[in-house]
Every structure is written in C-alpha cells, then in structure tokens.
C-alpha cells in the first residue's frame, strides 16, 4: 500500500514489497509499517543492507487479546548514520504464533527473540537456541500472555497455588 506521507523509507518499502506492506503511516512522528508475517526476513534484510538500518534497537511482543490476530511482534530499527528510526509490526494469529527469526541478520535478536518466546510463546522459526531466558525451565506457560492467570504462582521452592 502506498503511504500517504512523504517518508522516503516508507515509500521505498511500499514500492519494493507491494502487497507485503499492509499499512504504513507516521504515528506521533515515527515511521510505522505493518508487514505480512511471511515477508519479515526479506524486508528487514533489505532495510539493513539497502537503507543502512544497521541497528536493531528493540524487538518485543504484544498480546492484544481478544483481537484476532492476537499477537504482534514489533521491530524497532535505527539507522545510525542519519538518526532515522522505523518501526515494523507483524500480526500473528493466536493458535500457533510463528515468524521467521532475524537472529542471523542481527546477533542481538537472539536474546530478544528468546525473551519474546519466554513471555508470549511466539515461535521464531530458525532460531538457533529458542529456550527460556528470564523464567526457569520448569515454568509452565508464558506469563505476559493476557490469559495467564494473574494469581498463578509457580515457585521452584515454597508454597504453590
């Protein structure tokens, strides 16, 4: 979709990837694009190599229950040379949220994707070591999902409920 603004990166992105860019806009001064799950790896590789977005500032998950598609993965990219930022959002369905890893493009994504997996249960296809990073291995479920019971405690030692 062609953006209704004059952000050069968003225009180039829409020209290059066409249908894979579902929405693009300027949200409170930041360039934001909603992209199709299948195109994540290609788009980010292209932004990194052609548009100098050499830094992955953050990668995180969001749970929008009860909306469907329920989950979002948000990528914040930063072009160090000119101080430009772009935010990419990918919407994923609730049944088996899965998206391609970008840990081969940005080594920092390794731990960020593990955190997103740990907290939201979003699978990053192709990740070399997708296991829990904050919670302990015996922990069941993903605590930042909105349907994780707020009272549920899973201590390693001490009283359980």
């Amino acid at each position: 979709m062609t953006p209704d603004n004059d952000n050069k990166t968003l225009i180039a992105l829409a020209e290059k990837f066409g249908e894979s860019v579902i929405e693009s806009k300027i949200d409170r001064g930041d360039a934001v694009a909603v992209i199709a799950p299948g195109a994540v790896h290609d788009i980010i590789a292209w932004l990194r190599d052609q548009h100098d977005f050499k830094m992955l500032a953050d990668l995180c998950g969001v749970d929008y229950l009860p909306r469907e598609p329920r989950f979002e993965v948000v990528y914040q990219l930063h072009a160090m040379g000119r101080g430009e930022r772009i935010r990419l959002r990918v919407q994923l369905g609730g049944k088996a949220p899965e998206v391609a890893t970008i840990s081969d493009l940005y080594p920092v994504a390794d731990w960020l994707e593990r955190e997103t997996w740990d907290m939201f249960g979003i699978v990053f296809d192709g990740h070399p070591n997708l296991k829990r990073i904050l919670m302990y291995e015996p922990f069941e479920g993903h605590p930042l999902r909105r349907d994780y019971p707020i009272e549920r405690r899973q201590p390693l030692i001490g009283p359980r409920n």
Partner: protein
Amino acid sequence: MALKPLLGDDNFVTTRLDQVIGWARKFSIFPYPFVTACCGMEYMSLSSSHYDLDRFGAAFPRFTPRQADMLFVVGTISHKIAPLLKRVYEQMCEPKWVVAFGVCTCTGGFYDNYATVQGIDTIVPVDVYIPGCPPRPETVIQGVMMLQEKIANGKQDW
C-alpha cells in the same frame, strides 16, 4: 542492658552465663548481605560512615555465608533466585539470624506477580522484618537493635 552486673566488694562481677554470652554476641554480628535490588542502595548508606552500623558491632560484611551469622536479605527475591537464598541460609553456621530488609522481602511488596516470592518467610525463617520501600537507615538501625535485644535475651547455645 542485658548484662546485669552486680559489683561485689572485691570488684568482681556476677552474672549468668547465658547473659554474658548474649551480651557478647549481640555486639559481634557478622552480616552477609544478600543484595538483589534497589534496597541495596540503602544498605550501602547504612553500612558506610554516615549511619555507621559499626556502632552495633554489625559493620563487617562477610562475603561467604560460612563466616556470617546474620543474613541480611536486601531486595526483591524472585522465584528463580529463591533456591540460592535457601542454600545460602543453609550454609550458615548456627547460631544465625535472618533480617528481611524492605517490603519486597517481607511480603513481596508491590510485586504481586508471577515472578516474585511473596515474602521470604515462605522459604527461610525470619527474625526481624523491616518494612519500607526502601526503609530509611534509621528504620534498619531500629531493626538491628531489635535483633540485638532478641539475641541478648534469647537462650544461648554454645
């Protein structure tokens, strides 16, 4: 004062063994600071010169639990670190005391969530609870003095 001396004619003192040991012990506390979070800042101010925990004989932190007799649990305890806290406690020799420093250790504080232990007394026995987020050094000093009373007046093992 726990030592209740009775000065005799020839300048001798009579007391009970329990009392004299308690009196010695209460001024010879070796804390092990188990510092995990923001309360550690207050612990630093407490143990440095301005508030001077040394006045209570409790200034010299030992960084191995085997040489300590007071476990200062300072900061939020997550479920992930709880087994380590228990292990540190078990490594300390008797007699030993535990001080819960800050609301996080007393009850979990405002971290009423999946990650935080809701009071370290679910894991180890606690002698003194010091509330506050973080507690003022004066509050901690009061807690340490209460612990001293407890040490001095308790039954002593030797």
